[in-house]
């Protein structure tokens, strides 16, 4: 793999270089706003502001992919974001909601993240980076990372075009993952690429086994009744849908008359059955949505963060969709060239899996 080892302070120069050399027309990257971290879109290289380490900050606001979803534009956008955001972007490319040629995807190592609110409240204590020891320490103080991050087994910067890997101390390694990524890095004068083979398989395994342990410990939703109970408080505000990076329909079924019966329609149904639950479609809404994202859900947890009724949706969406993905042996966002499983599976293969 071609890459370069830098001081984390040098990343500023790298981003500036990408803009300067017109590798990208614009960059979306996390920046610090007061106690918090949010996404910023930069076109002028001089506006790339230090301290760049904000890109590693363990905070999750919105999924960056959700921001650029549907931007079918000529200009090239560089996106610096956590692996789950980059993976969502890759799924969106497959779903033709973005153009592969017009985005440069730069993933950064993620230790797991706190909600926007938690991070803002404890910015001092948390800081720009947390390792696992620190996560445990903070947990002791009642400051916990998001459940979605706890069960996430894909936190390393190994997706997208470029990966920014944290090393011990203040160093980072920037590697080109795709040809586009290598080309982009080569365009920058200050950087000279060399072969960088970083083996992180041990780390990956460790993360995966811990994540699996955490996932298995979650309470299971094992029946429709349990699901109804789980969703009891849902008000069908559809915030989870709006914040979901891979929920991409232009006009959601649940905004159409059939999916969103109102007034007379509801009265008709009520008359037929004697009584119906309102808000209508509570269960149907989530089941449809979980089906729609079943292969593409990257498990970023944005849905849970968006829920005004604090329903732990992580236990529904990433957990169930992961099962589906395992059936298809599909990892969403892993490779932009890999076709969506629904489009290529053979019925018989599926029969074998489900038996």
């Amino acid at each position, binding site marked *: 793999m071609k890459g370069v080892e830098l001081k984390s302070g040098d990343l500023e120069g790298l981003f500036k270089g990408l803009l300067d050399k017109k590798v990208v027309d614009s960059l979306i990257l996390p920046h610090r706003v007061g106690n918090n971290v949010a996404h910023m879109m930069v076109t002028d290289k001089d506006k790339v502001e230090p301290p760049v380490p904000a890109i590693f900050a363990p905070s999750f606001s919105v999924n960056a992919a959700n921001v650029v979803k*549907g*931007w*079918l534009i000529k200009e090239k956008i560089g996106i610096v974001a956590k692996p789950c955001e980059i993976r969502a972007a890759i799924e969106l490319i497959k779903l*033709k909601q973005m153009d592969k040629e017009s985005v440069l995807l730069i993933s950064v190592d993620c230790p797991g993240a706190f909600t926007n609110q938690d991070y803002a409240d404890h910015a001092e204590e948390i800081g720009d980076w947390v390792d696992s020891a620190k996560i445990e320490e903070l947990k002791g103080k009642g400051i916990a990372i998001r459940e979605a991050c706890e069960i996430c087994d894909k936190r390393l910067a190994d997706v997208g075009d470029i990966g920014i890997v944290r090393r011990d101390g203040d160093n980072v390694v920037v590697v080109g993952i795709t040809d586009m990524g290598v080309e982009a890095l080569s365009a920058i004068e200050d950087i000279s690429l060399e072969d960088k083979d970083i083996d992180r398989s041990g780390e990956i395994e460790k993360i995966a086994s811990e994540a699996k342990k955490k996932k298995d410990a979650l309470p299971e939703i094992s029946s429709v009744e349990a699901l109804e109970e789980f969703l009891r408080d849902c008000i069908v505000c559809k915030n989870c849908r709006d914040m979901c990076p891979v929920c991409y329909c232009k*006009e959601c079924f649940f905004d159409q008359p*059939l999916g969103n019966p109102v007034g007379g329609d509801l009265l008709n149904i009520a008359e037929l059955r004697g009584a119906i639950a309102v808000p209508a479609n509570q269960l149907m809404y989530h089941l449809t949505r979980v089906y729609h994202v079943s292969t593409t859900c990257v498990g970023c947890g944005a849905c849970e963060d968006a829920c005004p009724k604090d329903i732990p949706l992580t236990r529904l969406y990433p957990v169930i969709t992961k099962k589906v993905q395992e059936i298809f042996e599909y990892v969403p966002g892993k490779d932009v060239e890999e076709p969506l499983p629904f*489009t290529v599976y053979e019925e018989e293969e599926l029969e074998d899996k489900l038996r």
Partner: protein
Amino acid sequence: MGIAVIGGGVAGITAALDLADSGYKVHLIEKNAELGGKMEELAECQMGLSPYIAKVENHPNINLMLSSELERLSGTAGDFKLSVSGNEVGVESVVLAPGYDIPEVAKSYGYGSPDVVVSLDFEGMLKAATVSETGELVRPSDGKRVKKLGFIKCVGSRCQENEICSTACCAYTAKEAWEVKERFPDIEIYIFYMDIRVFGKDEELVAELKDKYGVKYIRSRVPEVIPEEGALTVKFENLEKGTIEKLDLDMVVLAVGLLPSKTLSKLAEITGVKTDKYGYIETSLTSPLETSVPGILACGTATAPMKVRESVAQASGAALKAAGLSQRTEPIPGQEEHKYIEVGDELKTGVFICGCEGEIANSIDIPAVVERVSELKDVVYVNSETNTLQEAMDAIESGIVDQGLTRIVFAGQSPRECEDIVRDACAGAGLNPYLLEMVNLREQCAWVQGPKDATEAAVDMLKMAVERAKYLEEIPVERYPVIPKALVIGGGISGMNAALGIADAGYEVHLVDKGAELGGGLRESTELPGPGGEQAADVLKELVDKVTANERINVYTKVKEEKVVGRAGSFKAKIVAEGSAEDVEIEFGACVIATGARRDFVPEGYFGYGKEKNVTTVSEFVKMLAGKLDANTIALIQDVPGEGVTARYSSIEVVDSALKAKEKNPDANVFVLYQDIKTYGKWEVLYKDAREKGVIFLRYDKEKPPKYEDGIVSVYDVIFNDEIQIKPDLVVLSTPAMPAEANERLSEMFRIPLKNGFFMEKPERPKMVLTPVDTVNEGVFICGSAVYPAMIDECLAMSSAAASRACVLLAKDFLETPAMTSVVDEEICVGCGVCEAICPVEAIELTEEPVPVVTFGVTTVVGRTKKVAKVGDGCIGCGSCASYCPSSAMSLKYFRDKQVYAQLDYAV
């Protein structure tokens, strides 16, 4: 004049329909009062066959002569006079399809205990278990639940009384076992067998039964079933332990073999056709459909024991040959143009409930249903007076004409059987045929609901249908002309035979082949298997000469690629040939794929092949047999692993060449190492001959394959239960057959799925194949070793069948565009392209339209384009796109969401 088809079983029905659909007058003569033959007795088959029976019964070109028997036949091809139960019929050709009977079962199999049943009856029991109160499979003797079930194969076949193998039993036993396991997973199944003679998909099914379902396949020909103390005791040899074991079973199914129909000998006498020594109509390896009397064709189990799949292929093939001797005299149904009345917004729903000759009226209180349905809004007319399909159709037609009905709800037998017929009735009366809603009151209600619930369920089903009917829309029916030409891909024996068949029927044929010369795989062969000693070259020469001489056939050789676009009736192709500067462009209405199979698998590394010079393959060995044979000890190894599949001819070839080696050199020690000897049908005689001539057969297990080291072949004979070593002068390997290289490309182009590299027929019911040469792509047919590596007679029958099916299509002047196609709501479409990717026929494409991109509610950047899905020609209405589209931008005409939801709202 016309064509007489004798026998109303599956073969007769198939032949009759192929002929009648292409405009020939058919006299279908059946001795029983009902159509269906043996298949009628098989629950699953009955369901599969019934649409065809309904079609025959309502076909204008078929003169159905039930309870009739042929009494006399005189005249010659082109002018036969038949006397049928007193009636005189004049025809140009005759197709014999009298079917089979089953042999008497030896008394040792349980002395008539009710718990010992033959397979045919077992099918009935499985069906009964579906509708019984408990839904369990129970013993006939005492009603106890079956826990241990045994199948005994080769009952009444491969024995003295019936020397040959019945071919079909291995597969149908596996399918019955599968059905039992699927429905009653707790039942333990034991299958006693000698050789498992299955191929292709059936082979996989057997593997699945063994591995996944835990079905025990035990190699022992169980000779007796002893009813003892409430159980049926069987003994079998545990070959591994070398012991005799006893097993108590609750029920035993005897897989009885097939014999020629009892009527066959009389039929042969009347018609003068020769029968072979087993009593079957005599046909040959190179003319499997022709009898000894010109103008009289034979098909199905009258010529040899075979499965439904082969029977049907033979029937279609025989139909083609019979048509060749006859003149088309009848119009082809469905070719007239319809004008439909404008129905506007007016909702006048008519409900028609057919009693189905008591099958519905017996378990459903029809007057009560009528009363409740009459109350429904928009229902202006209810008719429950009819008892047969024909009566019901008359009632619908007059309802539309006299009452001005604008929606029809028809409740009766399964739509699988009658949907086309009811739609035609609507269309005939001037109502758009898609303003019809069908209710399956027989199969889905009367047959499955207990008498208590049936009436209530019927009311619910009708209410749902009436509700859905409200939302039905008129769908325009368009027509396009059929190009009366065909493309045949592959110039081997199958392709040439198909091309000749189509050309002889009067259509132009383009025959393309990748080779420099016609002939295909058979060019590599020398002597054909069997005692006939026919030379492949002679067979080929005759075909090649005929093809070359035929003016209607255009031959293209060295063809690299055929780029085909279009749909049934109207295809276009560019033919790209090696060394030709310009591509040839052709048009055609139907296509036959006959790419054959490859035999060039090199077993490099197996048994020292390639290194040891005395290790050879069967095809090389067959060539050696033409010369002097020096080898004194020969080991033939069957089922050598490798990519590819077991060919139908593989075992036959091994046994045949072993026999020929022994005949050539009687003192030679010839050993055949095998897993299963698969000399199906009459080929069983080869196996017997080989043994009697002194060939030694040693059976090995897949897990313990033979080894060849230091000049010694070691094999663990699982029947002998010991290791046996041979010092051969010659080791002969039988290798698997591989699909043609072009299959992959053609599969993608035509969207016809492959299985192990071979083309799959259009799927029918899970247990049977009734359309062996049809594919999911209407207008494209498959045959020969492109479907599975087949024997020459099968290739010829199948390719005639494919030609027949193609001719049925080409005989039409027009085809209708499918009405139930997909439509896109462009406003909602988000352009993700999943529909494009999953469309099985590539009928959807994404088009780009310029649109502004809106971000955060503000038009910030002017985007390039927006992608929108468009449905083009060729949509087959499968609904894949509509079911996937997340934003429901895609929907299927006639299955609009609102139509389905209206129905569901009533259901929930």
